[in-house]
């Protein structure tokens, strides 16, 4: 019976290297398409970019959601089956073939794990406020029970402020020279490769001018309209002008040279998010069973569920967004990874080494 199956033309075809090569090529092309065509975008994107006829074609072949298209999943199944039967046909634990056996079964285990994930995994979101506890999370519009309670003790956002220095950029219109200067008052700068000299006389954070007296003053201490007064000494003469950070086109005053373009860059502080963390407590049957501060790259695990720091609200720092995942496929996938790597190491390095020793 076993012999009959193995010798049947269908089995021969399914377990053939030819089919593998064919699938390799077709799947690769599908993957290329999947990255070239933006996946799961709204219909308008495709209509605008490709036109109606092409979009209809895309829809009928599910090209806008390739990785979940029935034909793509069928191809993956066929690949798994092809590799599985091929590995089964050549199954051997001999020194020569054990590596290859591990490699190919490794892939089959990975794909089996992926199938378990696709069918059996739960993936949802939970929003929590400080002091709040919940025992449900949402998958789309439905609520799912956890069987225990998650409590948010504290949400922490770590930020870092970096201050950028202001600078004055000097460009020559006729030559390809651009020089940056820090804003240091009353310091004389010589512009390299030219006979120009430059001095910054005044800095006004919130520039304003009395129309009658032409007196310059600052309306406030805040940099609402920062400006600097620059003195330029050039071979053509001397000049003083105001340069505005917010109005780069306006240059007030008399210019020393029209050849020179001055730009004042005023940079305020910028804030970088260093990290965001949630202090979580798990209550099971009314008792504290686990406490952990989670952050991106460091989730909390309990009873098959994993809680990931996923989101936060910059306008409400008492709220945290947590991704809840239960994925029974993961152990299988990781086991497949290990099997595959062991097989690869043995085939490429173990076997040649042993062969050399044996000779």
């Amino acid at each position, binding site marked *: 019976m076993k012999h009959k199956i193995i010798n049947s033309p269908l089995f021969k075809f399914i377990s053939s290297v030819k089919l593998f090569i064919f699938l390799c090529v077709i799947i690769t092309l599908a993957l290329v398409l999947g990255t070239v065509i933006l996946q799961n975008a709204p219909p308008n994107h495709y209509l605008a970019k490709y036109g109606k006829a092409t979009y209809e074609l895309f829809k009928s072949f599910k090209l806008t959601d390739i990785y979940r298209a029935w034909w793509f999943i069928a191809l993956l199944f066929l690949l798994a089956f092809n590799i599985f039967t091929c590995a089964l046909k050549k199954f051997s634990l001999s020194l020569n073939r054990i590596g290859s056996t591990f490699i190919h079964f490794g892939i089959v285990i990975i794909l089996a794990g992926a199938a378990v994930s696709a069918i059996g995994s739960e993936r949802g979101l939970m929003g929590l406020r400080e002091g709040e506890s919940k025992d449900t999370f949402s998958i789309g519009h439905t609520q799912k029970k956890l069987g225990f309670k998650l409590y948010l003790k504290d949400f922490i956002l770590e930020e870092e402020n970096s201050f950028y220095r202001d600078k004055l950029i000097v460009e020559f219109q006729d030559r390809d020279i651009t020089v940056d200067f820090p804003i240091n008052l009353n310091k004389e700068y010589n512009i390299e490769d030219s006979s120009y000299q430059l001095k910054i006389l005044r800095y006004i954070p919130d520039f304003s001018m009395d129309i009658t007296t032409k007196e310059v003053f600052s309306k406030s201490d805040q940099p609402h309209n920062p400006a600097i007064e620059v003195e330029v000494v050039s071979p053509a003469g001397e000049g003083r002008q105001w340069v505005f950070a917010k109005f780069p086109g306006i240059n007030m005053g008399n210019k020393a040279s029209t050849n020179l373009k001055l730009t004042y860059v005023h940079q305020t502080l910028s804030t*970088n998010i260093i990290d965001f963390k949630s202090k979580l407590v798990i209550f099971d049957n009314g008792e504290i069973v686990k406490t952990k501060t989670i952050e991106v790259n460091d989730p909390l695990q309990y009873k098959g569920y994993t809680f990931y720091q996923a989101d936060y609200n910059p306008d409400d720092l008492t709220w945290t967004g947590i*991704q809840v995942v239960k994925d029974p496929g993961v152990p299988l996938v990781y086991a497949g990874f290990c099997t595959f790597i062991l097989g*690869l190491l043995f085939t490429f390095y173990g076997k040649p080494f042993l062969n050399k020793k044996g000779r």
Partner: protein
Amino acid sequence: MNTLLFNITLVSYMLALIFYAVCAIFKKEGLGLFARGILILGLFNHTAAIFVRWVAAGRPPFSNMYESLIIFSWALILIYLIVEIIYRIRILGIFVSILALLILASASGLDSSIKPLMPALQSNWLVIHVLVCFIGYAAFAISFVSSIMYLILYKREAFEPGGRPLNTSLDTITYKTITFGFLFLTLGIITGAVWANRAWGRYWGWDPKETWALITWFIYAFYLHMRMLKGWKEVKGAWVAILGFLAVIFTYIGVNYLLPGLHSYIK
């Protein structure tokens, strides 16, 4: 990267290139050893430069295009030196030093300022994942160089100084570097998957970078099967190796600029 160390690295690789070229033209063995010595010194210096940046930034310098090019050229020289020492072949040194110089030169035009790591990258997996990927990329780069050289030379009867036919050596190097690169590409994909599962709770998400890494993986898997089962060596093999490296370059650089996705911070 520290400018002085960066420049010393550039000069060393340039000198190594000159000595490799002179060695190939005048067939002077001693010069080849000298070239290797300079390349090793350059690599030490390159390593020091990476560490200086690491310390200055207070984090692994593996986060943007500038930093990744520095790592890529570093891995390229490292893997090349190993290949040179194992296979006692020096002719590739010319092209590998040119490639490393081109990579470093293009890095020097990019933004080299140190920025803090975004939360998703703050993980020990960053070091492992990036190193493994770039060692793989570097091995594939060498298989690419040896394939190109093979296609240029296969019609001529070229011999190495030791008397071995050069073509056979080049073909072997292509194969061996591809097996090595394939192992590391696989490890790169796996470490990426494990890291993604740790950070976001999913080991695979069809992100363009992931998908292109898989495409590259398929091309090299194709190479290995055709070579082992159908005897595709030499010319045919060389063409597949070249195709594979084009996919590597697209995975590494093209995806960041042309396709939107999770890895798009690497610009």
